[in-house]
């Protein structure tokens, strides 16, 4: 698998729907019903599905729709490993997976989960031996193990990791190893449950390309996903809601507004644009075709409003605690981990009060290390961090928590109370705030995160995406002057991402500073007024979304394993200049169409044609769009507004 390939140009292959998949499917599910112990509602309620040799089938739907349960059943883990009452049948080749033993299923099916650290054996000191673990269990001879491991290392582009301890890898690297650990077993059917949740855009593209290659080898591939990159790569896509099949057809058909909007979901941006252009039924995920069709259409904004339906609900955040405007200033920050690895190499950033800053970059680029200095979790080896003008140096983390709220990526690192409401009270109580203030803060955080109906629920009875919201609410309830979020949208469905985006907007509108690490470029473009791009511990781009995602910045962005959001890519294809959000693209399209004879030309990348002036993102050594370190903050740019769309489910 080459990391530079994309789903849009994956390996040509025979589609299962065109071959013999209907007659001899590798995976056949008939009338599947599944209910977990203690649950009244069925997780899966009468699903029929067939996946043929060489076929890619994606599963979309809201969190809790039954995608993971379907994946577990398809992999033969229910009820053998995961207890549940099941009905119907799951056939893997000629084996009844609901009644089969582990030996019956060995080599027939493999499954990849979303959290890589939890799917590694935990016993192997190197990646090479980790890959051998499954082969040992299949009792293969050592020579064959070596041959298979070498093949998969090369294919996945992880040969350089072969001698590394799997638990010292970044999340993205671990996920590639996790996928490789299943691929190396060469199962006939491969099931993946949100395999790109932890991956940066380059990693997600690489997985999409790999899925195409696996299908080209006549394997049946079933995967649950949120990212449009992967959903659009499928031959067919199944949409689930409350355990039932809502639609099962080509991705462009089932990920349309007609199917998704009634379920409370938004179609992927590329599908919205295809619908606006009137080509949703033919090539909805083909960016070139969509761009060409958009060039020939008019009234884009009006059509997009009709496609997206009602606007997203807004979130209000009324400040309760009295904070002065709080700037974040980082000057010449260097951090080295034991062993000498320099994770942050001389970063200087000035973040004015109330600014929303997204920090993006490849897995392992130093993003988390950088933000852990904001509340004293890490101390710099060189340089200085100031919050609200005061140096962080020497101040304990619990004291800095009065000003800086930090939401960790894994909610299970912090949740421990019996109810959601008690969990939310923990932070403000530690700050020794008055009881009435705590009550107000808890109510506001429950309201903002939409968790009020679950206030008495045990956090561990909630799904991962809801637990992440509880973790966010528990920090929001401290009403910090600076809110730091580490990958807040991981594992969230479309409405969940929209909710978090609205919280970011509301908190910043209330004068709080927001710093978030994210791999989601659409989320960054839509909700942050400034984007800082990191590579190998250094800042390589710094500017507004329009500046960072401008066509002329694409090479620098690509060198970090990132790519602009789809709206920016389409805008670049049409020579519309920089259009980081759907709203900006639609406005530019309407503007170009109104210009009449200056209609955009597909494939043209001249940034000056009918577009805003060239963007000026900062590169190291250049000027910053905000205050320099310890200098006065500059003004804010206005956030993107208007209709927006993002990945389905």
């Amino acid at each position, binding site marked *: 698998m080459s990391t530079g390939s994309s789903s849009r140009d994956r390996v040509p292959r025979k589609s299962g729907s065109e071959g013999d998949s209907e007659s001899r499917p590798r995976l056949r599910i008939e009338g599947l019903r599944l209910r977990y112990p203690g649950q009244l509602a069925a997780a899966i309620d009468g699903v029929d599905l067939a996946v043929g040799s060489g076929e890619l089938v994606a599963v979309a739907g809201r969190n809790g729709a039954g995608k993971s349960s379907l994946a577990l059943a398809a992999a033969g883990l229910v009820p053998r490993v995961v207890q549940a009452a099941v009905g119907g049948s799951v056939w893997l080749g000629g084996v009844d997976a609901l009644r089969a033993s582990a030996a019956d299923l060995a080599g027939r099916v493999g499954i990849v989960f979303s959290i890589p650290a939890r799917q590694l054996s935990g016993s192997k000191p190197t990646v090479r031996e980790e890959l051998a673990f499954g082969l040992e269990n299949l009792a293969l001879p050592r020579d064959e193990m070596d041959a298979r491991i070498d093949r998969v290392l090369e294919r996945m582009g992880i040969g350089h990791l072969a001698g590394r301890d799997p638990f010292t890898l970044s999340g993205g690297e671990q996920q590639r190893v996790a996928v490789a650990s299943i691929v190396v077993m060469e199962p006939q059917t491969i099931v993946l449950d949100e395999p790109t949740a932890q991956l940066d855009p380059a990693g997600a593209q690489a997985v999409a390309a790999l899925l195409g290659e696996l299908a080209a080898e006549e394997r049946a591939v079933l995967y649950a996903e949120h990212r449009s990159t992967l959903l659009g790569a499928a031959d067919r896509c199944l949409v689930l809601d409350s355990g039932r099949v809502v639609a099962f057809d080509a991705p462009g058909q089932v990920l349309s507004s007609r199917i998704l909007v009634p379920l409370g979901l938004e179609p992927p941006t590329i599908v919205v644009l295809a619908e606006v252009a009137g080509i949703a039924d033919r090539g909805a995920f083909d960016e070139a075709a969509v761009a060409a069709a958009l060039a020939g259409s008019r009234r884009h904004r009006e059509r997009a409003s009709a496609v997206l339906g009602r606007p997203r609900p807004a979130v209000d955040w009324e400040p309760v605690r009295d904070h002065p405007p709080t700037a974040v200033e980082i000057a010449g920050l260097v951090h080295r981990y034991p062993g000498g690895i320099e994770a942050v190499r001389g970063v200087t950033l000035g973040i004015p009060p109330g600014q929303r800053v997204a920090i993006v970059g490849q897995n392992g680029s130093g993003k988390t290390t950088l933000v852990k200095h904001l509340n004293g979790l890490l101390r710099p080896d060189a340089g200085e961090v100031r919050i609200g003008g005061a140096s962080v140096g020497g101040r304990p983390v619990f004291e800095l*928590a009065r000003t800086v709220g930090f939401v960790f990526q894994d909610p299970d690192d912090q949740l421990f109370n019996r109810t959601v409401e008690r969990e939310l009270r923990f932070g403000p109580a530690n700050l020794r705030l008055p009881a009435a203030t705590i009550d107000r803060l808890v109510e506001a955080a429950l309201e903002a995160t939409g968790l009020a109906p679950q206030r008495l629920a045990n956090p561990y009875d909630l799904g991962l995406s809801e637990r992440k919201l509880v973790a966010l609410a528990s920090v929001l309830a401290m009403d910090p002057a600076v809110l730091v979020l580490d990958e807040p949208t991981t594992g969230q469905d479309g409405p969940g991402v929209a909710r978090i985006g609205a919280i970011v907007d509301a908190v910043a509108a209330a004068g709080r500073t927001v710093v978030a690490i994210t791999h989601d470029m659409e989320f960054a473009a839509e909700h942050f007024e400034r984007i800082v791009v990191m590579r190998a511990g250094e800042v390589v781009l710094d500017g507004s979304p329009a500046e960072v995602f401008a066509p002329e910045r694409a090479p620098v962005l690509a060198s970090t394993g990132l790519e602009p959001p789809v709206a920016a890519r389409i805008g670049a294809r049409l020579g519309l200049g920089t259009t980081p959000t759907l709203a900006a693209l639609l406005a530019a399209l309407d503007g170009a169409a109104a210009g009449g004879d200056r209609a955009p030309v597909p494939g043209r990348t001249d940034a000056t044609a009918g577009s805003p002036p060239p963007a000026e993102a900062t590169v190291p050594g250049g000027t910053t769009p905000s205050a320099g370190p310890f200098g006065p903050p500059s003004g804010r740019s206005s956030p993107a507004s208007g209709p927006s769309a993002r990945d389905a489910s």
Partner: protein
Amino acid sequence: MGSTTGYFRPGDSWLHRRHPVTKLLGLAWILTATFLLPPGVLPLITVGLILLALRCRLGRAVGASLRIPAVLVASILVVNGLVFPGATTVLIGLGPLAVTREGLEFGIVSASRILVAFTASILFLLTTLPDDLLEALVSRGVSHRVAFVVLSAAQMVPRLQTRASTILEAQQSRGLVTTGSAGQRARALVPLVGPLLLGSLIDVRERTLALEARGFGALPRRTAYRLVADPPADRWLRIAFLFGIVGVLVAAVGVGR
């Protein structure tokens, strides 16, 4: 110290080069001698272990690890020193309590045995890669499921330590004060232990799924990718340790009479 390598410290010392089963038998010999023979052997074993640790260049690592049993050792000394049943020789009077010679002697012997056993065990863990131990046990006929449990146990403490430090960071970020009075520290335990236990349970559940997905235990036999070196001299060492264990048992029975 990593999640997969447990306490193992890479090296090429004499002890590092021994086969895991040889070291396991050596450890068994030391443990039986420590707990079954009279306390007079303890200084000898202690000197032997110190020399071994220095020769493996692990003196500092062993020393640092001794803080793990420190609380247990201190409590054994205090409890036995103050409240040893039947003790009559008072060394220091402390109001209603008294430090007695008999209690103190028993406490010192017990604490020494624990320290020696701990030191021998930690030397074994510091010089044995968990995966080598697993393969060595499986090659000696131990079920690979049982061997995996042994391996997981060897990795459990360092894994919990890593996770505990992340949880500590997360709770401090929410304003939890983990310093100060004993009461304050005690109150800080619940937010730390809760996620540690719950997270570990989630971890176990998901790792079980992952192992199943990779065919663990699916077939009655498995092959090994990792080759564990077994130098010829180790065979004689293992025999010597087995004789040593039997000798200790015989001597212990003799002493008991």
